[in-house]
Structures are given as C-alpha cells and as structure tokens.
C-alpha cells in the first residue's frame, strides 16, 4: 500500500474538513436566517459541485488560480509560488468541491433549531454571535459533526478534481484514489485491491458513524 498517498489524502481531507467548518458555518447561517429574496441564487451556487462533473469544476478552478488570473497572480506575488499542481491549490479545490457536503447538513441543523429558543436568547440580552455559539451550535452539534465528517469522507474519495488541479505528484498531490488508478494502469492489481479495500473500509466506517449518530435516513444524501 502507498502510505505516502494515504498520508497526503488524510491530510487533505482533515484540512478541508476544518476549513469548511470555518467557511461553511457562516454561509450556512446566512442561508438559514437571511430573509433576502434572492437567497436561492447563492443556494444554487453552493449546491453546484453536487451536479457538475469534477472535470468542469477542476477546469474552472485551474483557470481561476492559474498564473494568468488576478487571483493566481495575487497569490504568487505574496507566496512566491503558483497554486496549480501544489498541495495548497488542491486544498482550495477540495474546499470548493466539498462545500455542499458541509453547508447543507449545517443549514439543515440550523433550520431545526426552534426559532423561539433563539428569540428567548435575544431577549435575555445575548447578541446574535453569542446566541450562535452558546445556543445554536450546541443544539445543532449532530448536524455540524455530520457536515464535517461528510466533507472529510467526500474529499477522501475525490478523483477528477484532484487530477485536474493537483496533477499527480508523488508525496504532494497524489491521493489514494489516483494511486489506485495508477496501480491499475500499471497492471498492479494487488496494490490497487489493497488500497481500494482500505478506502472502502474507511468510507464505510465514516458512514456508520454518521448514521449511528443521527439515526435519520437523510444523513448522507443532503436534502433541502
């Protein structure tokens, strides 16, 4: 088994998951509580990675972070290296790719928090931010964990985006799913079988955890 690939994959998935907790919570909060009438425009954008082929998403990300885009130039001016085919670039792509897998469970959990409890907190003098951390987060803990774990699991198995944005650099951007593909191409079936089994077991364990925690049918297939 290619432990380097496993290490890269786990690192990528953990960082993606953590980043999505930071980025996804405010987005989900806004999607749940905003009364803006054009909110559905943003909702649709967040859900796009669910339906787009990874190659399309990967292509646009590659263009967006490439040296010819303002974003890519800004990054290379500051950091001194370019984003495409680097671990950082792969991380950005993973975050975007897994965004709905985090945001949708978050938003569903927030929606299930009784509005009256939030109002009670406000009348007791707690600001919206304090109410969020003291009341809404504990009440939607299961949904937040579900979102984090789902985005972790989803990143573990991503293939197309990794190939497009990360390239296939050993120890940097070669993830487990690409390693399996390479093994098969090289007719190394036993190596592929080992890695595939590993990924199967990990994915199953993650889903077991989520289902056991939520005991609800919807947990894996984000619904709105």
């Amino acid at each position, binding site marked *: 088994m290619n432990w380097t690939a496993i290490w890269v994959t786990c690192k990528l998935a953990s960082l993606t998951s953590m980043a999505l907790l930071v980025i996804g919570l405010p987005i989900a909060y806004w999607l749940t509580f905003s009364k803006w009438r054009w909110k559905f425009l943003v909702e649709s954008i967040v859900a796009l990675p669910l339906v787009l082929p990874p190659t399309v998403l990967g292509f646009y990300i590659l263009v967006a972070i490439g040296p010819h885009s303002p974003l890519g130039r800004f990054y290379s001016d500051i950091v001194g290296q370019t984003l495409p085919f680097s671990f950082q670039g792969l991380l950005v792509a993973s975050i975007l790719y897994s965004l709905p897998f985090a945001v949708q469970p978050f938003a569903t959990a927030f929606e299930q928090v009784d509005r009256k409890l939030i109002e009670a907190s406000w*009348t007791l003098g707690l600001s919206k931010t304090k109410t969020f951390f003291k009341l809404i987060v*504990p009440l939607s803990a299961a949904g937040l964990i579900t979102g984090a774990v789902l985005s972790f699991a989803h990143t573990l198995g991503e293939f197309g985006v990794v190939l497009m944005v990360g390239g296939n650099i050993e120890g940097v951007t070669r993830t487990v799913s690409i390693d399996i593909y390479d093994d098969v191409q090289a007719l190394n079936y036993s190596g592929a079988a080992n890695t595939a089994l590993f990924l199967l077991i990990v994915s199953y364990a993650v889903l077991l955890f989520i289902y056991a925690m939520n005991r609800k049918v919807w947990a894996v297939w984000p619904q709105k």
Partner: protein
Amino acid sequence: MAAEIAIDITKTFSGRAPISAMMRYPLQQATSLVLFGPSGSGKTTVLRSIAGLEWPERGSIRFISRTWLDTQAGIRVAPQHRQIGYMAQDYALFPTHTVAGNIAYGLGALSFAERQKRVDEVVELFQLRGLEAAKPRELSGGQQQRVALARAVAPRPQLLLLDEPLSALDVPTRMQLRSELRRLLKHLALPSIIVTHDWAETLSLGDMVAVMHEGQVLQLGVPQDVFCRPVNAAVAQIVGVETVIEGHVIEQADGVATVRVNGTLLKGLGVHEIGSPVFVCIRGEDVVLEQGGTGLTSARNHLNGKVSEIVPHGVMVQMKIDCGFPLVALVTRGAQEELKIERGSSVVAVIKAGAVHLVPRT
C-alpha cells in the same frame, strides 16, 4: 417625561386584517396590563413588537424616556438592548441547559460570584430549590412555567412581557398558578404586559386591560369597568361577562363558597379561603328571570330585585336588575313579553352556583 408606554404601530400580514394598534398607558411599578382578545386579534403581534421580535412596517414604540421603534426616524432598538423579560407561550426553555443554567443564561454581564448569588435568590423566590440540576424535560408543566419566569426576571428587566403565561398548563394547575403569578408579579414590583384570551385571567392578573379585536385596541381601562361597561357591542361580545362585582368569601362548604356582595349572599363553585376578596362574575345569559318567588328549583341563588333598565340587544333584551348589586340578565324578547317585564317590575333572578364564577383578587 411621564412614565408610560406609548404604542402606535401598523403591521400587515397577507390574508389577515392589518394590525393597527394604538395605545398609551401610564406605568407604575407592579402594574400589569392585560392584552385581551380572541385568537387572531393581534395581541401577540403587539407583544412581540414591544419585545423587538416583530418589526411593524410603520409606527413607534416608546417606553418611559426611550424610543424603541420609530420607523420615520429610522430607530430600531434590537431586543438585546431593550432590557425586557419575555416569556413565550411554550416557555422556550433551553433543552441543553439545566434549570440553573437557564436562569443564569442572561446573566453573562455579572461576575461569577454575583451570578451565583442572583441565581440562588431567584431559585428561592420561585420555589425551585432542589431542581437546579434538572433539565427542562424532567420538569412538570408548572415547574417549567416557573423556570421560564425565573429566567425572564433574573436579569432584572424593566418590563416583563408574558405571552399566554398559563395556557400551556392543565386546568387545575392553571387555577392554582393564576393567584401565584399575581402574587409574584406584585412581589417583583415590575411593570408587566400579559397576553391572554381568558377573561378570568384578565380579571385575576390585570390592573388594566386593553381589549383587542381584529388588530385594534377597542377599549383600555380597569378590567371591572371594561367588563361591566363595554364601549361598544364588539367589546361586549368579546368579554361576554356583563356582571363583575367585588365580594368576600364568608363561608366554604362542600366545594360551594358563599360570597357576600353588598349585603347580598351568593353561592358559587370553587374552593376559596374565607375572608378572601373575589370578583363575582356572571354571564347575562346564565341568569334566569322568574315572576314572583315561586317554587323550589335546583339553582342555589334566588335574588329578589327590581328591573332598572331595559336595553334591546339584537334578538335579546338586556336587563339591569338591582338586587343589592347591579346584575345584568339577557333574555329573549318573547320571554320579556310573556313575563310582562317593564322598568320597575319586581323579578326573581335565578342563577345556578356553577354560573357564579369566583375569581380570586389578591
């Protein structure tokens, strides 16, 4: 500036009569104003607007010297900054917090020691000793109500807002907690605004009542006045209790209380302490009129009186009878003709004990 609350707001909901409430009412310590009306009359919307949980499209809300809302001047004070205690109909206790945690929730500005002390005081006052570590779901309805009220008053608000404080309770608990709530409100010396659709609660809890109907305040006054002297037919219809008079319980036997009202004795159902003041409430339609004192009936109250006023009231006739106190009876026109009742006629008013409602007035 006078201590008062002035409300003038308009809020529209699709498919419903717009709420356009206007009232101005002086505040003293421990005064409770009851917003009374049928469901859908807009009383909860008014209360929520005062709390800052609902934003009227137009209007203003002023409390003492502060402006909480003024749509013209663009002032919108958030609920966090209004220093109010608000209790929702189903209490909205935080399921993740214990009783003590719920009470301490709004005390974040205090130091740890002060917070402990305040929680302790409130626990004592609301008789929650021993339940501090319990979660809300382990409590009875009455206990939940006390925790919710304790949580609302713990930060020492300037105004207490209660939305149907007793409606989530079963009937026996409700009766018991009604007097308890009244005592607590007096003890807290806090002005309060209470929403209810129950006329007995209005009489029992309110120093003032605002009768609401279809989004408007129809009458504002002392409950007894509003009940006995409604300004128009709509208020009379909503209230439905034409006779409200003060009395004292003088005897209590077998679940029947004897009450003295201006020298007249009346029997009503219920268990009350002897000597305690009560409101005697009688609906006009529950009063039967007889000519002369004829035979025995099962009704416990037979009052001799003279008709002092006859007012047509739709298909009915409303009669005021002087029987030691003014009593209102509603009879049909046919009955009036058959009994040949005119102004000055002597009649016997017959009322079953069950129709004589006694509302404690502490």
